């Protein structure tokens, strides 16, 4: 297939040289001397009522050009539920919540003016933990929760339960009542993870021809457009969002946050306004991967068949619902994935607390649900005496097996991938000798995630110099999709070289709707829309060439920058000649294409409150870790790490390997030392690089990976997203390997040296959840 061979290659990145020379202008590098600087007044209490907010004195401070409060942008936004004001209105719900904003000629003037704002807050008793929030007498974080606008119907809600998603398939009670089953129950708890993109959230707003223009470091230009419209009560079409190169996202920038504030201030002043989070603000208000609490019970026969499974997952959404409302959906597909299960019921609840709101982070709740499911699976194996690898081979999802919502999985993928892991291990050998007297453990784990498909649009303009311009709302966040896979795909479709494909930066005025860059979706969704656009371009090109060459279009093909008559290499005309002819006769050649989810059905009645009932494109991973634990210090050294990843089709194997190395290392940080804790006054304690321990070069090892191709995918050329899932099963593999090394159950991440020492000496408090009722149904809103 020539289209495939023309697309697959290790294309280097076109943006690398400017990035290496320091020339790339990220949003944060676009400050100009004539811009106003905005600074936020943030709450210093976790919960309270605003009794007085008087900004008049701040207006009179030197250099101040505008001061805004919640009253200036009264619309609420959110995902699923509109519960989030741009600036606090009447109520404070977390430490660090923006209350007012000052725009001044210099940042120092803006900061000085903050001190002139009169703010009186009546403190309220904060609700810090999910256990507190679920008490029947708990104070409501959102007293007015009943009156919020519902953006997406279907989720059950009550008080501090922002959203509940449930899946139920088969007779679980009957499965647990069988006389021939052992029941295994496990509880897990995980903390938050901070993204730490090197470019913080930052936006530059201006007001141009009666419309807002926001340049910003985001993964979701259309969300920023729509949210800005909502909060400013403007038609979203009066907001334009453009996106310069983004200095890291990892999911943090998959929601709007501070961007609309710049549009508001630009409208008030008529000036261009920049607002950037300081590193402290960025980390103190990071929309982290949420902390979560998980209880799983399984009924397993002596042969190892999982006849019944039930689970309760509590996800802390913090002060506002945000992404967690959507992510409750994913429990059905992550905890409910990996294995063939007879009957299953799962409930996932997003809980409001007076803590900074959480958000999306690479493979989101899949990371901890996979940790929980894989550790639970090892506990099943231990209880029933099974070999952990043999057990997985026997029980992983196969062709025709049902997921939690009754989705039918197609093809055997995880089974052959486990076989490939054995081959990979045989090739690399194991690293037990490197343990050198320390406690050694190894584990092989599996994971199920997905490609977040959804709508994308693309336009391709074919130019008279033979180049093509691809116009989409895609954003280059560092993963390389805009620099590698998309130009490769378009070039392959049109018989061009990738450097002839110009890729336009996201501009909501230029390109159609896109859900954003995240969820492993760009190559699949924008790629598919680009293929559709190329189809129209090709059809026009071949029709024109057919006229020129007096040949039927179906006898023509595109290759090497030419339209050739099939079977006659070197015949025909160059693409520039055909484009020039078209421009003179029928007009310029362009094509547009669109793509969206196919909405794979669930089994009737199985999925309640879900944003996605079934996965259009599941993605699987097999991860294997070898660790050595120092029994004196509790330090865990990762000796070896191996990955087999389901990529559908690898369009740029070298780039995918780079994503795997980077994603696994972020996972190692999550598993071992990236720890976020909440102080007694509701702050994120780790708000700088000294206290938040990121992986450093000496911490990491080279990951060995094997790309598994051929699993079914609706993506172009059979591709799947490859950048998101490398982090999916790292917590699982490390957690299982450490548990084996120390011979103690691991039920919590991260495995910092103090925690590992406590586990070794049986001084670690294992998670117990009195706020999760023993009966599954009592944990649901019915």
């Amino acid at each position, binding site marked *: 297939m020539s289209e495939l061979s023309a697309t697959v290659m*290790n294309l*280097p*990145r076109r*943006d*690398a*040289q400017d*990035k*290496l*020379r*320091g*020339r*790339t*202008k*990220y949003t944060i*590098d676009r*400050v100009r001397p004539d811009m106003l600087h905005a600074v936020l007044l943030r709450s210093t209490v976790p919960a309270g009522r605003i009794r007085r907010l008087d900004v008049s004195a701040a207006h009179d401070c030197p250099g101040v050009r505008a001061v805004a409060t919640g009253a200036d942008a009264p619309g609420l936004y959110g995902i699923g539920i509109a519960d989030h004001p741009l600036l606090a209105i009447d109520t404070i719900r977390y430490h660090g919540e923006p209350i007012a904003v000052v725009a001044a000629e210099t940042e120092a003037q803006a900061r000085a003016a903050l001190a002139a704002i009169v703010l009186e807050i009546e403190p309220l008793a904060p609700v810090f933990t999910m256990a507190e929030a679920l008490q029947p007498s708990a104070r409501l974080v959102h007293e007015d929760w009943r009156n919020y606008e519902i953006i997406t119907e279907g989720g059950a809600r009550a008080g501090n339960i922002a959203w509940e998603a449930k899946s139920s398939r088969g007779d679980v009670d009957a499965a647990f009542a069988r006389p021939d089953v052992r029941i295994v129950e496990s509880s897990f708890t995980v903390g938050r993870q901070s*993204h*730490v*993109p*090197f*470019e913080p959230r930052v936006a530059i707003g201006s007001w141009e021809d009666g419309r807002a223009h926001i340049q910003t470091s985001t993964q979701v230009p259309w969300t920023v457009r729509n949210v800005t419209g909502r909060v400013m009560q403007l038609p979203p079409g009066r907001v334009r969002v453009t996106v310069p*190169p*983004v*200095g*890291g996202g*990892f999911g943090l920038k998959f929601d709007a946050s501070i961007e609309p504030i710049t549009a508001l201030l630009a409208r008030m002043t008529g000036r261009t306004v920049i607002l950037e989070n300081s*590193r402290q603000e960025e980390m103190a208000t990071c929309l982290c991967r949420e902390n979560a609490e998980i209880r799983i019970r399984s009924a397993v026969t002596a042969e190892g068949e999982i006849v019944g499974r039930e689970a309760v997952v509590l996800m802390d959404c913090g002060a506002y619902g945000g992404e967690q409302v959507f992510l409750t959906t994913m429990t059905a597909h992550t905890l409910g994935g990996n294995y063939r299960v007879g009957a299953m019921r799962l409930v996932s609840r997003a809980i409001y607390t007076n803590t900074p709101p959480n958000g999306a982070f690479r493979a989101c709740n899949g990371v901890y649900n996979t940790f929980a499911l894989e550790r639970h699976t090892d506990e099943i194996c231990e209880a029933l005496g099974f070999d952990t690898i043999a057990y997985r081979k026997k029980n992983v999802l196969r062709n025709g097996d049902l997921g939690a919502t009754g989705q039918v999985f197609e093809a055997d993928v995880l089974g052959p991938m486990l076989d490939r892991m054995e081959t990979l291990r045989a090739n690399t050998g194991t690293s037990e000798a490197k343990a050198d007297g320390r406690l050694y453990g190894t584990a092989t784990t599996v994971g199920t995630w997905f490609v977040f498909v959804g709508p994308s649009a693309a336009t391709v303009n074919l130019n008279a110099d033979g180049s093509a311009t691809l116009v989409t709302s895609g954003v280059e*966040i*560092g*993963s*390389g999709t805009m620099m590698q896979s998309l130009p490769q795909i378009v070039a392959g479709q049109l018989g061009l070289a990738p450097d002839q494909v110009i890729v336009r930066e996201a501009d909501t005025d230029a390109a159609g709707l896109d859900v954003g860059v995240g969820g492993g979706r760009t190559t699949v969704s924008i790629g598919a829309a680009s293929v559709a656009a190329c189809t129209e371009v090709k059809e026009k090109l071949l029709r024109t060439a057919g006229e020129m060459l007096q040949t039927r279009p179906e006898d023509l093909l595109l290759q090497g920058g030419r339209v050739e008559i099939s079977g006659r290499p070197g015949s025909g005309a160059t693409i520039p000649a055909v484009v020039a002819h078209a421009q003179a006769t029928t007009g310029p050649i362009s094509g547009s294409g669109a793509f969206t989810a196919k909405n794979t059905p669930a089994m009737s009645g199985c999925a309640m409150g879900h944003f996605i009932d079934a996965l259009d494109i599941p993605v699987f991973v097999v991860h294997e870790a070898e660790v050595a634990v120092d029994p004196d210090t509790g330090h865990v050294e990762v000796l070896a790490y191996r990955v087999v990843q389901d990529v559908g089709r690898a369009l740029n194997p*070298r*780039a995918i390997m*780079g994503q795997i*190395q*980077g*994603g*696994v*290392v*972020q996972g190692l940080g999550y598993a071992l030392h990236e720890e976020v804790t909440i102080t007694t006054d509701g702050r994120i304690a780790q708000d*700088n*690089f*000294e206290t938040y321990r*990121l*992986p*450093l*070069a*000496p911490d*990491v*090892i*080279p*990951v060995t990976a094997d790309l598994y191709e051929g699993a079914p995918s609706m993506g172009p050329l059979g591709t799947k997203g490859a950048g998101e899932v490398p982090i999916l099963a790292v917590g699982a593999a490390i957690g299982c390997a450490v548990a084996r090394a120390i011979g103690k159950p691991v039920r919590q991440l991260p495995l910092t040296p103090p925690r590992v020492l406590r586990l070794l000496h049986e001084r670690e408090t294992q998670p117990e959840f009195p706020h999760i009722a023993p009966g599954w149904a009592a944990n649901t809103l019915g």
Partner: protein
Amino acid sequence: MTVTFRLNGEDYRFRDDPMTPLVDILRQEHFLTGTKAVCREGFCGACTVHVDGEAVPSCLKPVGLLHGCEVTTIEGLSSGQEALHPLQAAFEAADAVQCGMCFPGMVMSLSAFMRDNPGACRAEIKSAMVGNICRCTGYERIVDTVVDCLDTHRQTTETAGSMNV
């Protein structure tokens, strides 16, 4: 207070608070935004520049300490159409860059390290990188590239007898 130093080969006279961090002067006065202010506490290394040939975090360098010094930023390492530094060229060829925010600092730190430690082994390279954090790449491809660059350099110097990286 007036401080005079050379910035990317040109004389520069600064008349303001001598405690101003160098990074702010580079970014705000000269628009040399290749130097990134990421943590502003000396942990991340993204703001690394050369001061008299030594790699230092510019966020921790008060301008008052620079009198008479030669400051080189990433923009000065290979300016205009000049060829890339061999390490920059190697990073480009190896597809090592992702979001790219850490790379100017990474290049400034490692170019000085390679010049001073042409015989460094992999573990020494990794140790030298503790002050340069990368959130995207997982480091190993960066380390591989430095190892390859030093190998190439050793082979070249064995042939030509030069000591310049």
